[in-house]
């Protein structure tokens, strides 16, 4: 496994179609690390959910807007930061959601959405959020195996 620090940054339009490009870029960045798919998938999923939130809730699918994604690793962990200038994540959504494992799973009342934050927090080791004056930054950190 490469121990050298590596970085990569890309700028993407705030459209839902950018998610495919983002997933490909993540996997290209990780290719040199030779980590298993079982390690990659939760990070890919967390990143996809985070970017999807920026596009839909932060920018309301404004295709003229853009977000930036910065990938880095130092041989010990992979860090992915997303930068946007859209509507910030509400404060009550910045902590891991409380999931009741015994809550009833009645199909009629089952929501079609609302699982994104759970997948973000469970897919990586650390999530941090900074709301700046001009830019928001969401950072995902996942330790390498």
């Amino acid at each position, binding site marked *: 496994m490469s121990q050298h620090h590596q970085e990569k940054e890309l700028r993407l339009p705030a459209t*839902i*179609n*950018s*998610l*495919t490009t983002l*997933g490909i870029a993540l996997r290209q960045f990780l290719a040199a690390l030779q980590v298993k*798919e*079982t390690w990659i*998938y*939760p990070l*890919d*999923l967390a990143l*996809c*959910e985070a970017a*999807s939130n920026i596009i*839909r809730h932060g920018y309301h699918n404004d295709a003229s807007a853009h977000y930036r994604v910065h990938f880095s690793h130092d041989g010990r962990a992979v860090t992915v930061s997303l930068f946007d200038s859209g509507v910030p994540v509400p404060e009550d959504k910045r902590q891991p959601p409380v999931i009741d*494992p015994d809550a009833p*799973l009645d*199909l*009629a009342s*089952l*929501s*079609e*959405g609302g*699982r*994104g934050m*759970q*997948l973000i927090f*469970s897919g990586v080791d650390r999530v941090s959020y900074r709301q700046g004056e001009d830019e928001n930054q969401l950072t995902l950190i996942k330790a390498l195996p």
Partner: protein
Amino acid sequence: MKLETEKIENALLVTPVVRRLDASVALRFKEAVTAVIQQGETQLVLDFSRVDFIDSSCLGALISLLKSLSGKGQLVLCSLNGNIKAMFALTRMDRVFTLCSDRSEALAAIKRGS
């Protein structure tokens, strides 16, 4: 959104031909399967053997499809890879959907439920 379909007895096997079933295609996926249901197919097996990745939008689409069939038919999922199965378990959707290892098991599940 390309779907391959195959009718076996009273069940329709539907295979999404896409590697990433994320939010960029989830709506088209839901619309394509909904169209199949509207054509009268109510015993459905969704075969995920060609899908490597799904996100929460796809889960939402699947919940919507299951609701649309509720009481009128069956939706069974098969051939999910280990990572997708883990996601179903994490979100407890493995307790909502019938998950089968392959087509044969899924068709048997449809037959049992008919």
